[in-house]
């Protein structure tokens, strides 16, 4: 594609099929403690990395 470069990302729609194991950290647990975001969490599902 001439004008569009697509960055490699996890396909969220597909993650509806292979996600949901729940082993990842809870969202407010590491550094911030006053507000959260989920995007900075890492997926811990080894099979789906």
């Amino acid at each position: 594609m001439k004008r569009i470069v697509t960055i490699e990302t996890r396909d969220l729609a597909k993650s509806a099929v292979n996600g949901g194991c729940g082993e990842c950290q809870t969202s407010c647990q590491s550094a911030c403690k006053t507000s959260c975001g989920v995007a900075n969490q890492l997926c811990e599902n080894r099979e789906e990395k």
Partner: protein
Amino acid sequence: MIHQYKLNGYNIVLDVYSGAVHVVDEVAYDIIGMYENTPKDEIVTRILNKYPDRTDVTEKDVLDCIDDIEALKAQGKLFTKDTYEGMAFDFKRRSNDIKALCLHVAHTCNLNCQYCFASQGKYQGERAIMSYEVGKQAIDFLVEHSGSHVNLEVDFFGGEPLMNWDTVKRLVEYARSIEREKNKHFRFTLTTNGVLVDDEVIDFSNREMHNVVMSLDGRREVHDRFRKDYAGNGSYDKVVPKFQKFARARGDREYYIRGTYTHYNTDFTKDIFHMADLGFTKLSMEPVVCSPDDPCALTEEDLPVLFEQYEILAKDMLRREREGHPITFYHYMIDLKHGPCIYKRISGCGSGTEYMAVTPWGDLYPCHQFVGDEKYLMGNVWEGVKNTDLRDKFKLCNVYARRDCDDCWAKLYCSGGCPANAYHATGEITGTYEYGCKLFRKRMECAIMMEAAKSLGAENGQS
């Protein structure tokens, strides 16, 4: 839904529901912006009018670009539809497993920080220290209610947890002693103001703590403005050398230097860079959360300044990375390839469901920020969760429960935000704290831009 923005020379198009990120030139940027509600021939006319002197912008080019857009759409990478909402409404049936506890081992503090949401560590109550028995019961409660989860998180929090250090150590020892038999793995976090850090604390933490969070606000005058002892003396000189030693000793283990910025230091990147100058590399800086009449509260006028600060930070971090001495900033850590699945992204922070806070006397609250607010008392570590209505309310407190989030492009990065902030700002846990949202969206724009810059740089061999 898509989100388009320009930052640091990049034209970025984010496809909200698939998570795809595209970096495009300005022509494609304009075409994508028109695509959904403009007929093709109209798009061609407008683009040719806008770029009359460009030899690379002919009718064929525009039509080719539209073909590319349609191909991406067919691949589920552009204009993807929302198919997740139904999943969120199923959450009431979600399991009641708990996987993280915040143990308030000491409702007391050796500092007297003016902005502390816990009012000098006491959470609007009496000074209190958690006994070993209460802590042990909390760990048993966690294990018992953790279902099939293997990784369990326990946070030692306060007040200042080092004021009850012996109990912390005994609790770690106890938890480790049952790991094998129960098939669990504990990850401990210690949050500290640094005053009582010594070699013994450092050694023990390096063996046992998965993460250490050290509170430092940045430049001496900024830190000392709020973080004072009871005699009114700033704590910067006392804690900085200790944190430096601690951070060095952590090696590649996790730690965070965590600051709070307020209306008094809206130039907070200076504080972040100051932390970097002190040798720290894992940094976090949070906007203060307080009542709007408080003089340290951030104002509407501060917003453009703060936005600019976040951009300065992002650009400077890219520079540092290129030069081989990178720093990480908690809110810019985003892994586009291995980030959370959609379940995680729509289910909220987990407060009151998979995460709870335990008071020194064993009461359960939805999270550390609700401690002390009797309306939010959930139960205790002996009898478990008694207020199941409250738990159900938190279970359903996800991004689809907030009408304000419907049209927000950042919803799958934010998951609906912090219920505690929403509660403090609007009186409802399902409200939204607009000010926080604006900062959040800015941070995500910066973080995504940085990821795009890095991945394009890598492609061009610059890394």
